[in-house]
Structure formats: structure tokens, C-alpha cells
């Protein structure tokens, strides 16, 4: 979309070291931290998967979708529908099914939406996602505004998700798998084509690429990966509601990807953790005098978002990059 916002695709050494340290921390956390915080971290990892799926669409392909949460929520609902009231379902077939459902929805919606460009794309993705939201909100049969419960966590013969630590490590493994897959994809012919579409779609078409098909494929894949995150969310919290599909959730995801830095998936992970941490921090603010600061978290979050967009539009990685470049010039 913009030539100014150059993307950091090759990760600098310092960042790789940081990520490795982060990974180490994540691996040992359940042994050193409390159960409650481990659950919070697990949720952040789920959101990191969600953010990475959006980064494929937004950071790599340049498609800004305000409706990505629809696929996240749909997969959560799929789990809720597939789980009977009295017993657990098997992870091994429900997870792929939920992802397939999310992917199929993305394929169908994408077919209509991907033919639009620029601001239209943003608006129609928002509109279709809200359509899905209202579909669930207005129909008691689908749970209505109250949502649905996932009565039992999915069962996986080899591990027991009722054990929070098992769930944590499974989620960590999924996050790493998705990251590795997407990094591979970034440098593949398919990934290079998507990047080309982001930078100059017109020239890509003139060179013979059927850009509509590539964008639709990216949209569908991103939807399926968002579904993976949604499934895990439903499994962890045991509850799904229409808010998971709303445009607020989509906008939060966009914020996560921007905050960390777009186009390399590492930024999406960092952004997800940072955003979620910030959100919890705002909600936890103390009451000073008669004013409950935490209650007004939306105000702080709104000011923060406006601040980031105004002063650091390329996110944390952009700030780090600018700082290290300034340091380079200084050292010369």
C-alpha cells in the first residue's frame, strides 16, 4: 500500500537473539510462574497465532482486513457445535475440521471481497464480518448474544488438555509451527508473489500473474490459520460469543500487527504479547481518589492507539530500526 513503510523481512541478528531468549522464557515459564499467569501467557500465544495469520494478509500481501476476526470466531463456534453436552470430542479431527470451516468461510467471503481494492476492501471486509456477527447474535439457535459453552476441552489420546500445562505446551508448539511455516512461505515463490502484489499489483498483472487467485489463496490460508487460533481460544476459555467475531476484535488484531512491525511474523508475535499485556495493564489500573482508572481502559487504549499511529506508525520494530540506524550513523 505504501512505499514508505518498508518491511523488515530479513530479521537482524539482534532480533533473532531477542526471539530466542523469548522462546527460552516461554518454555520455562510454567515451571517458574504461577498457573494464572501461565494461562495468560497461553492466551497471548493464541493471539500471536491470530496476529501472524493477519500479518500474512496485511503485512505480506497488503490487504487490510477489518473482518479477520470472523474466521477466528467461526472456528471457536465450530468447536462449540462439535462438542456434545456430556463428553469431550477428539482434538485430532475437530481441530482440522474447525480450521477447514474457517478456511471455507474465508474462501466464500474472499471470493466477493478480494475483487475490491483499497478502501473498498477495508469496508467490505468489515461489512461481511459484521454480517457474520449479526448472524450469530440474532439467532438463538446459534447461541445468540449469550454465546455458547464448550463443556469439555477436546481430548487428545496422547495428552490431556484439562491439564493446563499440557495445553500451554501444545499452544506453544502450535505457535512455533505456524511461525516456521509462515517464514518458509515468505521466501517461497508464492510468498514472493504476494509481496510483489503488495508493492505493485498492477505490474504483477502486466507480468502475467493472476493476482486475484493469489490474493484469494492468501485470504483463505489466513482465514484457516485464524481458525486455528480461534479453536484454541474456545478450548482454553470454554466459551465463545459473537464478540469474538466483531470488528473490535479485528481492529485489535490489526493493532497487534502494526505495533510489532508488519511483514515478518516476528513482529506479529511481539505485537500480540505487547498489546495484550498493555490491555491487561490498563484494565488493572488502580483507583485514584474517586476515579477508577481501570474502568476507563478504553480511553487509555484509544489514546495509546492514536499515539502509536501518530508517532510510531511502523511499530516497535520500526522504532528499534530507526534507533539502530541512528546509532550506525553516529558510529561512522
Amino acid at each position: 500500500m505504501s512505499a514508505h513503510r518498508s518491511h523488515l523481512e530479513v530479521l537482524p541478528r539482534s532480533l533473532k537473539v531477542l526471539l530466542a531468549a523469548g522462546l527460552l522464557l516461554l518454555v520455562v515459564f510454567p515451571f517458574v510462574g504461577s498457573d494464572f499467569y501461565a494461562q495468560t501467557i497461553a492466551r497471548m500465544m493464541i493471539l500471536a497465532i491470530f496476529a501472524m495469520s493477519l500479518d500474512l494478509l496485511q503485512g505480506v500481501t497488503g490487504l487490510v482486513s477489518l473482518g479477520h476476526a470472523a474466521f477466528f470466531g467461526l472456528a471457536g463456534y465450530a468447536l462449540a457445535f462439535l462438542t456434545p453436552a456430556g463428553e469431550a470430542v477428539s482434538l485430532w479431527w475437530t481441530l482440522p475440521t474447525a480450521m477447514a470451516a474457517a478456511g471455507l468461510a474465508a474462501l466464500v467471503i474472499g471470493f466477493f471481497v478480494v475483487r475490491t481494492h483499497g478502501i473498498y476492501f477495508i469496508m467490505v471486509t468489515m461489512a461481511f464480518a459484521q454480517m457474520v456477527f449479526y448472524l450469530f447474535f440474532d439467532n438463538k439457535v446459534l447461541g445468540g448474544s449469550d454465546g455458547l459453552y464448550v463443556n469439555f476441552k477436546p481430548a487428545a489420546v496422547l495428552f490431556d488438555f484439562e491439564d493446563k500445562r499440557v495445553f500451554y505446551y501444545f499452544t506453544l508448539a502450535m505457535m512455533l509451527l505456524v511461525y516456521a511455516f509462515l517464514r518458509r512461505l515468505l521466501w517461497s515463490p508464492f510468498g514472493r508473489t504476494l509481496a510483489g502484489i503488495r508493492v505493485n499489483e498492477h505490474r504483477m498483472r502486466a507480468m502475467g500473474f493472476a493476482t486475484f487467485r493469489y490474493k484469494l489463496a492468501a485470504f483463505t490460508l489466513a482465514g484457516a490459520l485464524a481458525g486455528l487460533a480461534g479453536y484454541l481460544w474456545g478450548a482454553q476459555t470454554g466459551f465463545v460469543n459473537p464478540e469474538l467475531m466483531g470488528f473490535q476484535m479485528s481492529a485489535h488484531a490489526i493493532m497487534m500487527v502494526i505495533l510489532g512491525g508488519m511483514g515478518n511474523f516476528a513482529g506479529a508475535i511481539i505485537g500480540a504479547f505487547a498489546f495484550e499485556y498493555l490491555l491487561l495493564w490498563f484494565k488493572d489500573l488502580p483507583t485514584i481518589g474517586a476515579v477508577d482508572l481501570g474502568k476507563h481502559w478504553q480511553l487509555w487504549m484509544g489514546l495509546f492507539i492514536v499515539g502509536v499511529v501518530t508517532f510510531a506508525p511502523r511499530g516497535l520494530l520500526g522504532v528499534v530500526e530507526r534507533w539502530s540506524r541512528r546509532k550506525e550513523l553516529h558510529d561512522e
Partner: protein
Amino acid sequence: MNDVLLSAQRLTKRFGGLAAVNEVSVDLWRGRIHAVIGPNGAGKSTLTNLLSGDIAPTSGTILLGERDVTGWSPERISRAGLGRSYQKTNIFLPFTVWENVRLAAQSRAPHAARWLARADRFAATNEHASRAIELAGLAGCKNRIAGTISHGEQRQLEIAMSLATAPQVLLLDEPLAGMGTAEAERMVQLLLRIKPDHAIMLVEHDMDAVFALADHLTVMVNGQVIASGAPAQVRADANVQSAYLGEGVQ
């Protein structure tokens, strides 16, 4: 053998009541350069866009080889063997020169949609890209970011990208735009190098280059062809002189 690789017949494009291109016919032969000249607003850009599929004609036909490609999308026409370069540089600024050309070459690769292999490890694509870069004289700057090279080098990159898809027909829109004398001379040499293997349509304002390169010359004014033939002949044509060349050019 003078194969006609592209034949546009009576192309017309109307915008509202205005005919930007009016009953224009153009033929392109293998190994020859067909130059199209005319004052600003003559319809040359519109003609180029019609041939490349960027705009659909109001009437008329376009034949690429034996195939009727009228109304085809730009990507379909490109795959059918047509390449073009742009007057306003239309490259991938944040990518390296190498990646710009490699991506162009990748469009023809059967593996273009593969998801997990590294894109830069496909020998055939790399070879096509290398060849295009050599032809365009860009081997020296292939690892530089396209946004940082000189204007002349960017124009060369434009050509390299259109060559990398191995087209039979080339539409070149003002390749010498904004170039100094030395750069322009290099570009003329480049075009002479690639001439034997392609059928080229050259839209240009630089008259020196036009007369050095053109085997056939067409003059457009106000959307219509007012003269078409061998350069010397067209130059001497009275209509052309009064309408265009006579305005104090060489």
C-alpha cells in the same frame, strides 16, 4: 521472413463523446521496430494501454499471432507473449534489481505457486532473469535496491523486467524518457541488441532515437493515424510536416 506477430485493426476507444483512439491499425513484425510518434494527447498512451489489455477497446480487434486477444485481461495477454515497459517507471522500488527481474521471470515458471521451497533456488527462473539482466546491462548493480539506482538504470530495469517474461512482442513506452545523452545512447544500443528476437512497438519523443531505430514509422494526431510507412517517406510527408515535425524539430 516478416511474421506479423501483432496486428491491431481499426482500434477505437471512446471516453464519453471523445475518441482518444480512432480507427487505428498497427502491425508489428518480428525483428523490426515500429515507432509511433505524435504530439502530446495524440492517443499514443491510450493505444499502448489498449494493446496491453489495460483498457478494453470500444471497437476493433487485436490479434496476437493467430489469436484474437481483444478484451483479454492484462495477465492473459502477457502470458500469450506480450511484454511492455512503462513511460512512468513502474518497478518494485523496495526490492533489489535482481529480485525485480527474478519475479518477472517467475511469472512463467510452472512452480510459481509453490509454498515451501525457496524462491531463489529455481535454476530455470534464475537463468532467464540473469539473461535479461545481462541484455539490459544491469549486471553491475543487480544487488542494489531498485529505489536507490539512477533514473537511467531504472529505465534499463523497466526493459529488463519486460524481457524476463520472454515475450515475442514488446511495447516500449518512452524508454528514453528523462535520459541524458550518454544514457540515451546506451538505451538505443540496448534496443538494437534486442531487436532481432522481438517485434517491437516504440512510442517515443526523442527524434534522434526514433530515426536511428525505426524500421517503420506511424504518426498519430488527435487519436488518428495521419501517416504510416518507411521513416524517410513519412518524414517527407507534407501532412506530417505541418502537423508535427514541421514545428521546429531537426
